[in-house]
């Protein structure tokens, strides 16, 4: 009877129990704080890795001309964090790939780079001297120094129109009897890579990073490319003429085909390497850095920049023989625009706007009634308006040039 009133105090076991619960809670808080610190340390290390990668990238950029294709390694801050640099050609430009790794963490930085030179030797126009003076007619303006036959520009009267509105600002110098030779600017290393077909890809969106091997897609069976999204380290290769439609989203890729037509209103960023014809339809916008390169000594080349088409980068038509140059033709239509360099070892019909420099072996003006030799009508060339940071095509070897980043991937 009395035993049911016996109340056991058990303070020790209660204390231990409460202590365990409080310890578990405190432990949780401590663990959270501890793991947060680990996370912060990891973030700081990533930051350091990125900083090392950026610094090494700048180091490789500064010493780019002395770098090997591969096997460039540097420990820039002597911290034991090694960075590897790889360079490769990408159309007119180069790609520098910089990889910094430590244990399982890896940071990769890739960028399109090009040669940049000082502004002082920027010409607006160069025309080869074949003892035939350059004639300018219509409403034309040339801003910048020129090198033209006999060192002078004459007025031309097309279809007996007397009224010309010419604006020429800059020094006129005498040109040579040959067009300045361009360096071997292209080495795409196409045939080192294994070719794939478009059918090998399940998705219409294809991306390939520059840190991976180049993806060469053979589209010889597809004459029209439409509805694709192609970005990065990709070469579209075709043995047949190719048409790129407006519905594509294209960035940074190379297109190699005998003839390439870029359909109206296409917007993108690409480099075209062709042998016969290249045509930019009206309203095409090829963003910087885009370029067109055509080379052929046997067959004719026709590159056409149609009305309201724009390209930022450059257009190069080249060959090795004089006879071949007679079959190479560049047509820059009215209201079209090219920003950068235009180099044509052939005939150029220029009626559009050029912000940059034009090198042409000769000019031609074809009207409904006749053809005028070494005549330009209604052109607008301005080399001063080219932005200071604009990295031009590496056409000539200049000693004072340095490498600069055009675009980071």
């Amino acid at each position, binding site marked *: 009877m009395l035993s049911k009133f016996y109340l056991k*105090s058990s303070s020790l076991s209660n204390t231990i129990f409460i*202590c365990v619960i409080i310890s578990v809670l*405190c432990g949780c808080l401590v663990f959270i704080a501890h793991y947060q610190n680990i996370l912060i340390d990891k973030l700081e290390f990533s930051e350091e890795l990125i900083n090392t990668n950026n610094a090494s990238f*700048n180091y490789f950029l500064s010493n780019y001309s002395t770098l090997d294709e591969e096997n460039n390694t540097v420990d820039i801050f002597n911290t034991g964090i090694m960075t590897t640099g790889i360079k490769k050609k990408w159309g007119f430009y180069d790609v520098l790939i910089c990889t910094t790794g430590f244990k399982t963490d890896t940071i990769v930085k890739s960028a399109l780079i090009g040669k940049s030179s000082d502004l002082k030797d920027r010409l607006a126009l160069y025309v080869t001297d074949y003892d035939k003076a350059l004639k300018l007619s219509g409403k034309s303006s040339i801003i910048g120094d020129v090198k033209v036959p006999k060192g002078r520009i004459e007025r031309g009267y097309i279809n007996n129109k007397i009224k010309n509105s010419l604006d020429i600002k800059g020094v006129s110098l005498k040109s040579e009897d040959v067009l300045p030779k361009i360096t071997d600017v292209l080495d795409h290393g196409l045939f080192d890579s294994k070719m794939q077909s478009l059918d090998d890809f399940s998705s219409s969106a294809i991306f390939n990073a520059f840190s991976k091997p180049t993806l060469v897609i053979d589209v010889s069976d597809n004459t029209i490319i439409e509805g694709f999204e192609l970005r990065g380290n990709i070469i579209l290769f075709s043995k047949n003429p190719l048409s790129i439609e407006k519905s594509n989203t294209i960035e940074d890729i190379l297109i190699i085909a005998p003839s390439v037509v870029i359909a109206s209103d296409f917007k993108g960023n690409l480099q075209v390497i062709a042998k016969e014809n290249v045509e930019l339809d009206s309203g095409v916008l090829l963003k910087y850095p885009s370029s067109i390169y055509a080379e052929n000594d046997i067959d004719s080349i026709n590159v056409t920049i149609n009305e309201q088409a724009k390209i930022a980068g450059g257009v190069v038509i080249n060959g090795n023989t004089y006879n071949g140059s007679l079959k190479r033709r560049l047509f820059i239509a009215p209201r079209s625009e090219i920003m950068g360099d235009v180099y044509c070892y052939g005939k150029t019909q220029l009626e559009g706007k050029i912000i940059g420099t034009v090198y042409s072996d000769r000019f031609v003006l074809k009207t409904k009634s006749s053809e005028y030799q070494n005549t330009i009508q209604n052109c607008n060339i301005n080399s001063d308006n080219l932005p200071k940071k604009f990295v031009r095509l590496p056409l000539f070897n200049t000693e004072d040039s*340095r490498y600069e980043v055009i675009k980071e991937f």
Partner: protein
Amino acid sequence: MKLSKNFRFLKANSLLESVIAIAIISICILVAFLVYINVIKQNKSVINYNAKHQVEQIYQQSMADQDFENENYVYKNCIIEKRVTILEKEQIIRFDFRIKTGDKTHIIPKVVPLLR
């Protein structure tokens, strides 16, 4: 009377139990406190992050102004020393930003291409 009889059998905490309980609680508090202090000590202060932010600003400004002179920047809670070394052979400019916050010193190095 019956109730008072029952109270006679109500046993209180023994002194020993209480002492052990207090000792356990004290040890737990001490251990928790030490661990907590250790964890807190590792935390990076806001001053440190602020200083890093300042370094980035100084670096960007130096690049924009092409200012490659050594300089010291004194802020409320930290001092940033900018040291610039031009390495002609490697064609680079090396910046070393030494951040002093209290008794801690931290260096952030940066490298940029040497413009000719």
